[in-house]
């Protein structure tokens, strides 16, 4: 990437990191002005992040989907976008603090890999790629929001217990109920979009490799991740798991998503050329 691109990229990461810290500070010490500044800071970072995605798109001539770096750039964008959407109207003041670190992790990891511009290889020139990747980003973004909400839920319940309050305190209960519902809604959204991703990926695999499913590590891990979230939904809907129990499940389930995400990029790394020549 060019020097200017790199500067803006790292500035966005630093901005996100600082705003996460600012949010936590604002909540801990009840500084409304700092919380407002953090919101503005995240929005500003997101605006530059959007510009980076557009820049990369124009530079490469294709949607940023090739390689670790582009997937991290676009995937991180979806995480931030969905976090901002979920937290609009200031419903969940700490949500960004819980979810954005995953965007930082993914984007930081992506920046350590090869950032060179690559042409779109023939194996990626498929309508199904865009469906598969788009729903993957939606799913992973939603799972990250669920995880962020879970982390905030766990820290709030731990803090209120330490302060002698409890979940029966009306303001705390209302906040926790909203977080609980956000965890559930995000998981539902992620589960459905994840299913579309897997289905679209299978159809694409059949067109590219001649097989809907070949148990390769990437496919298998994405199925494992989907099953874990399916289990979380079962625990919630049929066995009534709520609150801290569900929060722990969702906070840990993100590990499967992170493995799926990096696994995809390991498989995608390879020749930029179509033919097995030379």
């Amino acid at each position, binding site marked *: 990437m060019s020097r200017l691109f790199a500067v803006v990229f790292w500035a966005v990461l630093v901005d996100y990191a600082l705003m996460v810290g600012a949010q936590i500070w604002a909540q801990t010490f009840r500084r409304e002005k700092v919380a407002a500044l953090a919101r503005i800071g995240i929005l500003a970072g997101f605006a530059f992040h959007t510009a980076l995605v557009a820049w990369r798109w124009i530079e490469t001539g294709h949607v940023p989907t090739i390689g670790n770096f582009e997937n991290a750039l676009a995937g991180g964008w979806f995480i931030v976008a969905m976090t901002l959407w979920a937290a609009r109207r200031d419903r969940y003041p700490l949500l960004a603090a819980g979810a954005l670190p995953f965007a930082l992790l993914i984007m930081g990891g992506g920046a350590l890999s090869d950032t060179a511009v690559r*042409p*779109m*290889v*023939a*194996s990626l*020139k*498929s309508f*199904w790629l865009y469906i598969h990747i788009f729903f993957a980003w939606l799913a992973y973004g939603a799972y990250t929001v669920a995880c962020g909400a879970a982390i905030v839920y766990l820290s709030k319940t731990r803090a209120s217990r330490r302060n002698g309050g409890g979940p029966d305190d009306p303001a705390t209960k209302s906040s926790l*109920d*909203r977080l609980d*519902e956000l965890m*559930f*809604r995000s998981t*539902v959204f992620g*589960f*459905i979009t994840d*299913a*579309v991703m*897997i*289905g679209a990926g*299978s*159809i*694409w695999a*059949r*067109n*590219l*490799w*001649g*097989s*809907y*499913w*070949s*148990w*390769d*590590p990437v496919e*298998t*891990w994405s*199925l*494992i991740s989907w*099953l*874990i979230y*399916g*289990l979380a*939904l*079962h*625990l919630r*809907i*049929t*066995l009534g798991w709520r609150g801290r129990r569900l929060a722990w499940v969702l906070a840990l389930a993100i590990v499967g998503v992170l493995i799926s995400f990096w696994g995809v990029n390991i498989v995608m790394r390879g*020749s*930029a*050329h*179509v*033919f*097995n*020549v*030379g």
Partner: protein
Amino acid sequence: MTGLLRAISSLRLTAALILAFSALLMLGVIVPQASVVGETAMQNAVAEGGGVRRFFLETLGLARLHTSPLFLALLALFFVNLVAVLTSRTGPTMRRIRMRVPDPEPLKRWVASPDALVAPLPVGWTAAGATSRLRGFGYRAIRAGDDTIWAVRHRAAPFGFVLLHVSFIVLLVGAILIYYTRAVGSARLIEGQTWEGIADDLRRPPAGRPDRLAFTLTSVEPRFEKGEPAGLGVSLRMPGGQQRSARVNYPAQWGATTILVTDVGVAPVLWLQDAQGFALDKVAAAAEHDRPTRVSMAGNRYLVTINPDVSRENFPSREALGRVPVEVEVRDGTTVLGRVQMTPGQTVQFGDARLVISDMRYWAGLRIVSERGGSVLVLGFVAGVAGAVWRLVLHRREIALQWNGESMRLTGRAEFFGLTFREELESLLEALQTIETKETI
């Protein structure tokens, strides 16, 4: 027996099975699988490893986990549990989606609950207007007395549970069909060559055999962008003269057979002539990418080794094909007659024979897959997603509206997302307060 049935249809068993299944799949990712690394590589790994490796990979079947008895047993138990759960819960689900107004007393108690929303009755308010307004919000409303309306939205949404879980069975049927009918073969053809046979050299179907297939590779079309390879396609002539084309990501389809293009290379056409120029032999040789290619000519008398100067960085376009240099070595038995670099159209003397590269063509590597059940699999995916959306997103909501001369009470319940539904109720109440007298059913 009842206890056993209850255990089999238990949702705790479902949770445990999902966990066990996931753990087994994780093992399949960590332990190398023969289906991923290839049978030959796996056999070599087992042969080179010690007894421990052989025990885990072969004896326990971990190298072929997805067809191992353990995996299949778990899968079978999973589907037994699924069918048991479906059997026990479909009846109650179907009863729930019936349009049935609650009994008056429970309905009255429900509306009287303290968390019902209350608002003054607007001037000119009518029940017909309220019903109409509720319909605008997607509710199906029924009068449940002189002063009560009961309404439901997405009444049949619980059926999504059935659809989602039946889709797993559809997916299983599709997978079984594919497993038992799938045949995979490979072919490497030079432009102009015809392939005929049964394509199952890579995988034979456990049941039956695929139909014989015949086609001719009429042309290979590599695509370039800014001088670099960017795409690959082939044109095929099928039985009856029908044309098909296959490109990367867009395979050719012929009945239940799919033909994918996987590879490409160059194939010099070699003529071997005697000293008088009479042809002794003619061969079109598909040159390998990464090593020299040996070709026998004139009844194995001559061994010709060709090594075209072609790599992924300089892969020739159709226009440049006629200029591709080829390193050629000719042997007569153990005697090397010569080693030169030739280009198409050039003739070189080797001993008492002459070698001509008359032409340079492309060859294409093809994968031929024949299977049935793919459309069943896709149907399963679609049904699963539709079921999940229907059940979880469009979930069922019920409301009850009661009024007297001065005020109205609105209460409701949703299967999921209670807080969001609460906001929906508040919007509904606001809308009900703005009903005008002219609104009718």
